[in-house]
């Protein structure tokens, strides 16, 4: 599943971020591959807002379509 298909309130695991630079930046922000995040908000057709503990990150729609996630029940 892609990050763009996530639902609000869903807890997911970031499985794969294809772009190398984005991958490194994501690790710095604490949402790198393997981290468990919660989708706090989805702006319709726009960015997905992820939260991990107190850290909130806005991920643009185009990027969200490239990021693979796994649902964590």
């Amino acid at each position, binding site marked *: 599943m892609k990050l763009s298909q996530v639902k609000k309130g869903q807890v997911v695991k970031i499985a794969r971020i294809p772009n190398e630079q984005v991958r490194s930046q994501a690790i710095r922000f604490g949402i790198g591959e393997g981290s468990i995040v919660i989708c706090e908000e989805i*702006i319709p057709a726009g960015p997905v807002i992820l939260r991990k*503990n*107190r850290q909130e990150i806005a991920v643009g729609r185009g990027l969200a379509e490239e990021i693979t996630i796994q649902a964590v029940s």
Partner: protein
Amino acid sequence: MAHCHELGLKIDIPENGRKIVLAGNPNVGKSVFFNALTGLYVDVSNYPGTTLEISHGRYGKDAVIDTPGVYGISSFNDEERIARDVILAADVVVNVVDAVHLERDLFLTQQIIDTGVPVVMALNMVDEAARQGMEIDVKLLSELLGIPVVPTIAVQKEGLEELKKAIDRAKPGNISPELQSRLTRMATRVASQGEALLILEGDPVVAERHGLKPGPHREEIYLARRERVNYIVSKVIREISQGATFSTRLGRWMLRPVTGVPILAVTLYLMYKIIGVFVAGGVVGFTEETLMQGYYEPAIRGLVTKFMAEDSTLGQILIGEFGLLTMTVTYVLGLLLPLVVGFYLILSTLEDSGYLPRIAALVDRVLTAVGLNGRAVIPMILGFGCVTLATIVTRLLGSERERRIAIFLLALAIPCSAQLGVIAGMLAGLGAPYIALYVLVIFTVLVIVGTLLNYVLPGKSSDLLIDLPPLRLPRINNVLKKTGTKSFQFLQEATPIFALGALLISTLQVTGILEILQNLLAPLTVGWLNLPKESATAFIMGIVRRDFGAAGLTELSLDPMQTLVALITITLFVPCIAAMLVLFKERGKQEAPFIWIGSWIVAFLVGGTVAQLAKTYPNHAVTAVALSFTVLTVLTVLVIKNLKTRLALKANMAKEG
């Protein structure tokens, strides 16, 4: 006295003096620490090879150097490269950390520690962390990191003295254990541990300096570091309460379109009230007319005419209509300075409160349609203040492609506040339908041109990936400090450009070329735009100063439709001469003329289309124009969308075989 050679910056460091470097994430209050250490005497120098500025000063016999706010050091962008080089050259690093944002900030802290430099941490905003129900075990944090940690509340000056004392106790911290053996191996080839680390992390620039290949282990090292940081955070933070506070809820409302759009609309309305009405009307009226034109200009004219006649060539250049000592000074100090200060005051408030990244996220979708991302909202808003300023600020955008699009749109369709004042005055006399039509035409042009550029330009724009910091009340000190620095930097950068522009136009006037240009433009204005011949003067004036152009129109007797056509054309027409010169500086000799001529073509094309439509349907002019432009926009957007889908399909088919 020794110079700081390895940085390429000219900083005087006394013998036995150390280089104290301030480092931290964006918006953690670094500047307050910088001021506390250096006092009033601060130097700002341009960092070689970039457009960024670095502040440095003295603390006792030590030099203090500031760095741009970054999330980590590497070669991802100019800010990071500078922070990297300054930190690598440091004797002591003062790492400023936002206590509320420990998870994010400690990544940089650990990376700095891994470079092996002595570090001391200022754990800032501990009051806010406490208010949010977090308890931080400072002693344990210090033990785990292996460096002194001083809790501070910088804006209230709490902890600053303790921090100054702690600088002498700064020491190399605990390096991530897995990293140690690798670093030791690399250290046989590279003298400094910091450079060895960056080579291991695959930094191409540092690797090249040593003639080595960048290491392939960046992600491994980053992940290990992230894990270590998460472990430390889990050990030192105790959450006392986790209830949703008002600011958390407000933060959400700002993001949801249903509530976020009205909040944004109110914010923009307030901005318009403050800048458009209070500053542009009241303050500028006083500074430009009363102060500069009332007192300054007569005084300087009196002084200069003692030495030369006003109508001599040099006299015209110095104190004539576009004089270096008259118009340039009045324009920069009387008109632009109040506007720029006003804009930066608001922008810094929005930035400091944490609202700006939320606006960027909210409008991201709209801006991706024209090949930009949410971050471009900052230069776009600034453009309504001064296009010159906004053009400089586009540097914060992620790619060349985005800068190209943003700068073209700024040059074309964003009227600056000086011009907006005159335009609003003239439109107000025409009534609501014409005002609506003006806004519609300019907006559709923005959408059509942006969509086309996004389609035509090769490459892909960068996607939004930003951190949404917790909302907080803006701190007055910070806002004022930021406004002061930014406004000053703008004046420093733009004044010579305005002077050069004035000089250029004076020369054209003295040599008579200006008049020839006016005559050349006549067929276009009369035949195509349906305006009187004299309107050509307004357009020529518009090249100098955008509001001059608009003001030149008030002297002509025009019917409502003619006024509208003239205003639309002058809005889309080339930006003022200072903005043009910045454009040349930022975009180079090959691209800038293209943008310049492009905006001529679009301006006359759109203005003429409106004029011709109005001529063809004299009884329903407003409706005809409104309808045509709406249809045109929808068509453009749909056709481009269709083309894109087809291209994507083709690419997919090619991929599959």
